[in-house]
């Protein structure tokens, strides 16, 4: 197909998708219904344009193959979700709550009434999930994302309290500063991993605990005066120029709380996806993650790439902190509704470590949280049941994911197994 047609279609697709996403994400159901639905239709239209272009370029058979492949990769998480919901329902029933009413409230709250809260919840999760997923690609487990989150939050707060430049300039600066702090927090684990082989699970986890204890110190030094403010401690509010714009600033009827951090998260996800799959650095990182012996034999520096991966991962998790402070809270609370790091791990696993996938699983998680709160307010079912459902989804999806994703590796294993067991070749 002609190159200009292809580019034109691509452009149409991007524009439709972008406008659609902005409308959809910025809307709340009650006050912004039109935006919500318009947003969805535009996104669907963009997808349609993509399919049209794909068919024109590659033919109908390829299209069917693509559809089949996508379905296969989606079937597994969906199955996991369905089964987990069922098990959760049973658990609720056994313990005396009404599962039907509870789930109704859950889905209504998460998908419709409090959609904006779902979006608000999703943004930091997407960042931390990107962090964990990116590290996964290098064969590393950045379990201490929570700590890098705190570092990013603290850094963003500090810079935002004092940097008085116009928003256009200072917000990017704060962004970079937070990212750098998060990356710096992973320098020691990266260094130790490369030089001594120290497992990053333990080192990042320990540093996460350290960060957690450092934050109250920071807060007290920046406004959390025990004498005048109440527990939980909180810092002063950041300067207005450093607050992320909210959708309501350019969209009527949009909820004033929903800020543009989610757009940032999506853009970063796309950038990371590009970095991983379309650049040399991403190629090297993936090679090291898949087989560091072969990578090394071809001259790829394993140490350098482990470093890169952990530092970038640290920066990503820190951006979640930036998102929360500059976008939502505009200050730093002592007990940050913690858990973005931990939940980020779940979100990443659920998406199979795929950078674009985490956007979707992040939204799912955000929806479950928002719906869970709505559910507990209106039906008195403890929202902790949502935690259990999430845990089960995770367990099932990860188990299944490993099964399907490595069915090819399975064959290789069988070959290797056959080789080992048969002590020769079959």
């Amino acid at each position, binding site marked *: 197909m002609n190159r200009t047609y292809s580019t034109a279609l691509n452009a149409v697709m991007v524009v439709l998708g972008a406008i659609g996403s902005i409308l959809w994400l910025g809307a709340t159901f009650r006050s912004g219904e039109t935006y919500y639905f318009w947003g969805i239709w535009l996104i669907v239209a963009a997808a349609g344009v993509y399919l049209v272009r794909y068919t024109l370029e590659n033919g109908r058979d390829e299209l069917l193959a693509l559809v089949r492949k996508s379905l296969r990769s989606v079937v597994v998480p969906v199955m996991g979700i369905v089964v987990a919901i069922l098990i959760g329902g049973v658990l609720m029933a056994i313990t005396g709550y009404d599962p039907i009413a509870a789930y109704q409230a859950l889905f209504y709250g998460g998908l419709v009434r409090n959609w904006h809260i779902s979006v608000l919840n999703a943004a930091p999760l997407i960042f931390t999930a990107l962090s964990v997923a990116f590290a996964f690609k290098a064969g590393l487990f950045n379990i201490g994302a929570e700590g890098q989150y705190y570092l990013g939050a603290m850094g963003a707060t500090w810079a935002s309290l004092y940097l008085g430049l116009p928003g256009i300039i200072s917000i990017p600066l704060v962004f970079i500063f937070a990212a750098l702090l998060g990356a710096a927090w992973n320098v020691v684990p990266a260094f130790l991993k490369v030089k001594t082989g120290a497992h990053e699970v333990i080192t990042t986890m320990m540093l996460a605990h350290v960060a957690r204890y450092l934050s109250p110190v920071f807060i007290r030094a920046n406004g959390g005066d025990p004498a005048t403010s109440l527990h939980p401690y909180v810092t002063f509010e950041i300067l207005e120029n450093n607050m992320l714009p909210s959708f309501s600033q350019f969209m009527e009827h949009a909820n004033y709380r929903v800020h543009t951090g989610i757009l940032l998260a999506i853009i970063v996800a796309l950038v990371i996806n590009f970095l991983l799959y379309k650049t*040399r650095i991403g*190629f090297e990182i993936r*090679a090291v993650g898949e087989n560091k*012996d*072969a990578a090394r*034999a071809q001259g790829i520096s394993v140490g350098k790439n482990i470093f890169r991966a952990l530092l970038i991962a640290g920066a990503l998790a820190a951006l979640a902190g930036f998102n929360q402070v500059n976008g939502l809270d505009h200050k730093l609370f002592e007990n940050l509704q913690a858990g973005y790091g931990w939940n980020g791990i779940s979100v990443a696993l659920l998406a199979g470590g795929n950078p674009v996938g985490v956007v979707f699983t992040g939204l799912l998680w955000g929806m479950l949280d928002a719906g869970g709160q709505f559910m507990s307010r209106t039906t008195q079912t403890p929202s902790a049941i949502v935690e259990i459902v999430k845990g089960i989804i995770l367990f099932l999806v990860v188990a299944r994911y490993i099964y399907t994703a490595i069915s090819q590796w399975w064959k290789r294993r*069988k070959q290797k197994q056959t080789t080992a067991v048969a*002590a*020769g070749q*079959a």
Partner: protein
Amino acid sequence: MAILETRHIVKQFPKVLANDDINLTLQEGEILCLLGENGAGKSTLMNVLYGLYKPTSGTIVLDGEEVEFSSPRDAIDRGLGMVHQHFMLVDTLTVTENIILGSEPGSGPVIDYKTARQQVKELSERYGLQVDPDARIMNLSVGLQQRVEILKALYRKAKILILDEPTAVLTPQEVEELFAVIRTLRDSGVSIIIITHKLEEVKAIANRVYILRRGRIEGEREIADVTKEELANLMVGRSVVLTVHREPHEAKPEPVFTVENLRVLDDREVEAVDDLSLTVKPGEVVGIAGVDGNGQSELAEAIMGLRPATSGRILLRGNDIEHLTTRERINQRISHVPADRQRFGLVLPFTVAENIAIGYHDRAPNSRGLVLDYAGMEKQAEELISSYDIRTPGPLAPAAHLSGGNQQKVILAREFSRNPDFLLVNQPTRGLDVGAIEYIHSQILRMRGQDVGVMLISLELEEIFALSDRILVMYEGQIVKELTPAETDEREVGFYMTGGKERSA
């Protein structure tokens, strides 16, 4: 009297019919050989016999009784013992512990080590398999480890012993010792099956032989009545060119690659390469012969920059390269075909195209600046797939889907297409079938014909003799002898490989 029989054994794997209607008998007290090239199905059959696999159909008859094994335990209890090609020994445990594993003496939960050592000592004396019962496996030579494996089977009172490619890791001298042990065992009432692809060994030790090809029995012969050529033909199914023909080729006088007084330590901080020097000229193949573990891998790693040298020089086209990183050495046009292709040669989940690109992924046609150029990568891959006849669904197929031979071809395509001046090839045909071996040998000779300097490390003397212009024997980290194929034979090379010293007349 037939002590063991298989009747119509079939073993089907998802994509492969490994054993197709196998009927064979083992007579009591005989040494039976199962001959076939890599991939013929011999090991699958043995694993079926040993209880590791369940046959898709067919029966096993032991001592006249039909038996079904649901695990190796059953087979062991019925008197079958197996010595695998890759040893089933736990490195950190002692000889005794490995031998008694699973059948430990002692009432209750506690192991009676005293009795165990006693039993091991008696056993090794009885069969002439001397070994130190308290030694740790990791400190033993390969030949001694094999003894432990045999003792393991004997400890469990095996009446039938199956040996899978037992000579693959032995020197010619050790092979003789092994054969002596086998004869002793036979004389004491053990029936023996040897799996191998080496024709000379079949002739040397066995009474009878079954030839296996593509999962079926192609023939059964008494050793006395058959020639090597007949065996080879049955094994491969056509008239076999036993070696690739090596045309004489004049090497250029100036060496392209030199190693001077190289010293390299292994992982245990022991000197693996000990003051080693050699040269390779453009247009010649220098074959490094030696038993595995005499420093060859450390030498290869040092050459490629994967392991530091403690002293000495490495020169490429007259320039020192010891201080260069692996990446820089690759840029200097050294190519490397590593010994373990799946571990060091390929990133299996990556596509064929990516595996061809890796190492040169930072330049055209694989990338433009910092961004990868997949179109260019694929195009290059397609060209190479065609010129190297790589059987693959396409350049975007994951390397893991390819057969061993084709995986090796991908590596060759990558390394050879970089127009190296010096080529280091390590165990290029391990585990491959005859067709692939022929192809790879011809490719190596083609590079030689293009005046590339080739250094070949191999454990297969046949391969060394087929390809090398000069043979360097490596023993305990040193080159102990230089020979040419014309003026020597495998026995002599084997002699030096095991540390034999020239006798001063």
